[in-house]
């Protein structure tokens, strides 16, 4: 009979839960039946050890990259014991809940307050490129850069609002705003970071991938650009088109500046990606993760309380 068989782990998934009261990553281990387990800490990582349970799903890592959890690894330590290791980017408090049913779900809730702490008191200016008559790049089917970058910028704004960071957009609608006005806004508002959102345009429709421009001769901008690009590529799994220094941001003294070219809109596979709301969200998450990592690694923030 089904209920007498050894329980099997059939799936592991995770989700960021955002609401007014709560901000955490929920990791769920699903199994065909209940088993005995213990949850503890190994360094920053959280480890669930289950006894009398086997893996039905492939063992090994599952990428998460949500800014707090990098991956979750399932491992069969003995023929009748399974270990789930949650690899953390930052330390976090946790609690565990189990619910009965088919499947049985064991949920580990990880607090994301560290991320909120890293961004506390920061003012981020997001600049969705182009707008109005200036449509920017055009996709081979029909998409326009000015529209898709606004969708990604809106998702990114949401992520910053969630952690109570101060966030501004240079444009909220389809308006044409000269570049010098956008840069001036960063100065006037005393922004801590200037994040431009663009897509790349190329004569060769085969060229695709992610690139990040940064303010030339600014160490901070280069550091930020590297982190944003790496985190975006982890999320989107697109080709790395590299980092490029640009002189056009030189007027923004003292403010780190990056301009993200999320994809090449002229590549028709990547134009297809730009149609998906899930893709906009993932792109925003990648940029957000890069920025939090920047604040986690820069000197001024090393002493952030956990």
């Amino acid at each position: 009979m089904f209920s007498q068989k050894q329980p099997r782990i059939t799936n592991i998934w995770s989700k960021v839960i955002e609401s007014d009261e709560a901000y955490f990553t929920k990791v769920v281990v699903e199994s065909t039946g209940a088993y005995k387990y213990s949850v503890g800490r190994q360094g920053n990582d959280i480890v669930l050890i289950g006894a009398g349970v086997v893996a039905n799903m492939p063992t090994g890592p599952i990428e998460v990259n949500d800014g707090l959890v990098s991956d979750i690894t399932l491992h069969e330590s003995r023929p009748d014991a399974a270990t789930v290791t949650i690899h953390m980017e930052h330390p976090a408090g946790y609690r565990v809940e189990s619910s009965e049913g088919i499947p049985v779900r064991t949920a580990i809730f990880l607090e994301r307050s560290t991320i909120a702490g890293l961004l506390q008191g920061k003012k981020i200016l997001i600049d969705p490129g182009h707008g109005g008559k200036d449509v920017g790049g055009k996709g081979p089917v029909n998409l326009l850069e000015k529209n898709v970058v606004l969708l990604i910028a809106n998702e990114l704004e949401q992520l910053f609002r969630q952690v109570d960071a101060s966030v501004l957009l240079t444009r909220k609608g389809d308006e044409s705003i000269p570049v010098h006005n956008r840069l001036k806004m960063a100065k006037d508002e005393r922004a801590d970071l200037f994040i431009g959102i663009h897509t790349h345009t190329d004569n060769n429709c085969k060229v695709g991938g992610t690139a990040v421009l940064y303010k030339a001769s600014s160490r901070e901008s280069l550091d930020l650009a590297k982190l944003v690009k790496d985190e975006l590529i982890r999320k989107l799994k697109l080709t790395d088109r590299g980092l490029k220094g640009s002189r056009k941001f030189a007027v923004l003294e003292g403010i780190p500046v990056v301009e993200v070219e999320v994809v090449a809109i002229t590549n028709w596979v990547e134009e297809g990606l730009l149609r998906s709301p899930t893709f906009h969200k993932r792109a925003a998450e990648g940029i957000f993760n890069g920025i939090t990592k920047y604040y986690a690694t820069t000197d001024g923030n090393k002493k952030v309380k956990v």
Partner: protein
Amino acid sequence: MIVGKIPIRTHVITEKDDIVDVVFKYTGEIAGPGDVIAVAETVVAITQGRAILPETVRPGTLAKFLCRFPGKDGSLATPQAMHLAITETGVPRIFLGVAAAAAGKIAGRKGDFYRVAGRHLTLIDDVAGTMWPFQRHIILGPKTPQEVVDRIKDATGAEAVVTDVNDIGNVDILAASNGIDGKALIKELEDNPFGNDDQQTPIVVLKMAE
């Protein structure tokens, strides 16, 4: 009565896999007689080698012309995808579909193209329609889905369906083994237990009360 829906995580399935072997490997210890194994149509198609890289498709003049007419957010808006649709269904039937679509447009009706040119064309997912590592592929609908569900039933003893489910609750059952109540099953799949496309759970076991 269905007492539970168990999403089954698998490895990344490719054309090197046999779909019946994959289903047996991951559900053999979980599903038994009376239970239903639901398999997402996309992975069935992938195991049949029906994930096509657009670079390998040379669209003809007809495809280049016709791809301008369907909705831009739909699946046949690129010459490559339209070319594959023509190859799948044949030139005469495509023309009948186009004629029906034109008449439908005058009558203010949608969907006539697919009704005439073939429902199987709605299963074509254009680039960026499928999870990594198939985001650069165009995925055609699966071939012989009935044979697939019959083989799964033989191998596992459980009932089987091949299904197309999306996040907005549209459920299409392409084939079902003979012991299945299709209507009841559609209701159970409306909440999309397969999860979104990056969750790697292309199989769901619906457990029945014992």
